[in-house]
């Protein structure tokens, strides 16, 4: 009941926050804007609409995860709302997990709304909605779970701006993780190789969550790889949240 109360409060806070609403409205407008693209690229309409729809959904959800997640715990400390909550029989791990799951609920809801909107848009544009597209949406949710966990970790000890910068840096590096490994193995000094390998293993491998290429070009998806990616996300999120809890437990207010 306590954990659910924290989850519900975080969800309610985000829903009543204008930032979330603004991002959702922009996401809708961008998706609708895809209607203008076909006239510029004859023959590639379907691919462009699918690609733009999936990419804009990813971008706006990542923005929500980073911007809202990065201030999730910090704002509680800054506004001193945390004093009242932690003086109640709430363990610190419950607080961190409650905030995390609350934001995940927001993101899942946002993804569901955007997916429904995108599916409606595709149907109206006479483009068939493939099952792979829903698989990509599922992987997006797990990718967001990883990014949100990282943002929450940072929010336990740095300001929202720093948290956003660090999380975005990790997101972009993680999205290029295979290139990072490749760059480090190609006749580079030993130190560079070590750093690239270290970053590759430490930072989340977010490229695994992107099957939009297969979705857009109707290529069959490797389901085993998808399953492994989901397990990877769960393990990564657990590890990051554990670190976030350990950091948060040591804090004095």
């Amino acid at each position: 009941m306590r954990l659910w109360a924290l989850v519900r409060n975080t969800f309610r806070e985000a829903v009543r926050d204008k930032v979330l609403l603004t991002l959702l409205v922009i996401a809708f407008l961008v998706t609708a804007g895809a209607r203008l693209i076909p006239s510029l690229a004859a023959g590639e309409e379907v691919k462009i609409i699918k690609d733009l729809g999936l990419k804009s959904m990813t971008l706006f959800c990542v923005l929500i995860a980073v911007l809202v997640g990065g201030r999730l715990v910090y704002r509680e400390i800054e506004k001193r709302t945390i004093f009242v909550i932690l003086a109640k029989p709430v363990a610190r791990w419950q607080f961190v997990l409650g905030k995390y799951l609350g934001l995940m609920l927001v993101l899942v809801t946002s993804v569901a709304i955007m997916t429904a909107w995108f599916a409606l848009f595709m149907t109206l544009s006479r483009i068939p909605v493939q099952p792979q597209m829903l698989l990509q949406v599922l992987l997006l949710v797990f990718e967001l779970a990883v990014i949100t966990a990282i943002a929450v970790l940072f929010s336990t000890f740095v300001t929202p701006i720093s948290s956003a910068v660090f999380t975005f840096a990790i997101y972009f590096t993680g999205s290029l993780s295979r290139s990072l490994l490749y760059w480090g193995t190609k006749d580079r000094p030993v130190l560079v190789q070590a750093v690239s390998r270290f970053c590759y293993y430490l930072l989340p491998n977010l490229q695994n969550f992107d099957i939009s290429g297969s979705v857009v070009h109707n290529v069959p998806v490797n389901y085993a790889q998808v399953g492994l990616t989901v397990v990877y996300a769960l393990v990564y999120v657990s590890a990051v949240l554990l670190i976030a809890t350990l950091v948060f437990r040591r804090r004095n207010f």
Partner: protein
Amino acid sequence: MPQPIQVDKLSKRYRSGFLIREIHALDSVSFDVGQGEIFGFLGPNGAGKTTTIKILVGLTRPTSGSAKVMGKSPDLVAGKRELGFLPESPYFYDHLSAREFLELSGQLNGVPRRELRERVTRMLATVNLTRAADARLRGFSRGMLQRVGIAQALLHDPKLVILDEPMGGLDPIGRKEFRDIILGLRDSGRTVFFSSHILQDIEMICDRVAILVAGRLVSLGRLDEILATEIDTFEVTVRNISEDALRTGGVKAQQILPGDDKLLVVVRSEGDVEELLRLLAAQDGKLVSLVPRVRTLEDFFMSKVRSQGAAAGGPGTGGAR
């Protein structure tokens, strides 16, 4: 049954600034608070009151020493089940209404779902917020927020209530209502620990007080004992003797105030009283009354603060936290 609050040699040091200067916020503070007591915690700004309270509710850990709340470490969730807490200048989730916030507080405190609505409605009425129950906290005044804070601290019917500057922001009617709530808590066997700058409130309702200055406990005891041992002056009313006779007779009077056929003589010490009585006997004067004037809590508090400030070479070795 353990004491509701046990504090033993509690010390807290902070590191601050470029040169990593160490600030002693608390220095070996010890006291207990007994079951059913109203305990007042006094001290000037930066004395360490809020630091002590933060340790008691598990927001901060001490550098050394220990604190126990309802017999358990404040770090443990179990120790907080019987605790209600109102922080200084409270901030609550301003996206929620007063009712929603109290429902959240009840859920976090483990109030059964079937009782929650009724308790929230009753508590809103207790703190006179029924009409504003469904308004967002964002638009509340400081006094109204303080009422919400008191409501969330008492909603789950805790055995121990810790309040940090609870009278801040309340108008005189609010303060009176709040004093009645605290006295009601004591009558029902609850323990109340609160800090306040408003000495009058402490004097009116506290059973015992502790005075903290620059992180050190300088006084602890029952309010009546503390003040009874601190007689400030004696007011002696006499008759059949002139003011001149008193002055020439060598009485060390701090003040002589003439009345109809009497004189009110204010003297400082018991020795001065004896001197006056000897003179009265020699001059055939009459003693009408002899009243020792006990110090107020404010007098006592100020003398402690001044003496500690002088001993430490100046006030404020601690810091506001």
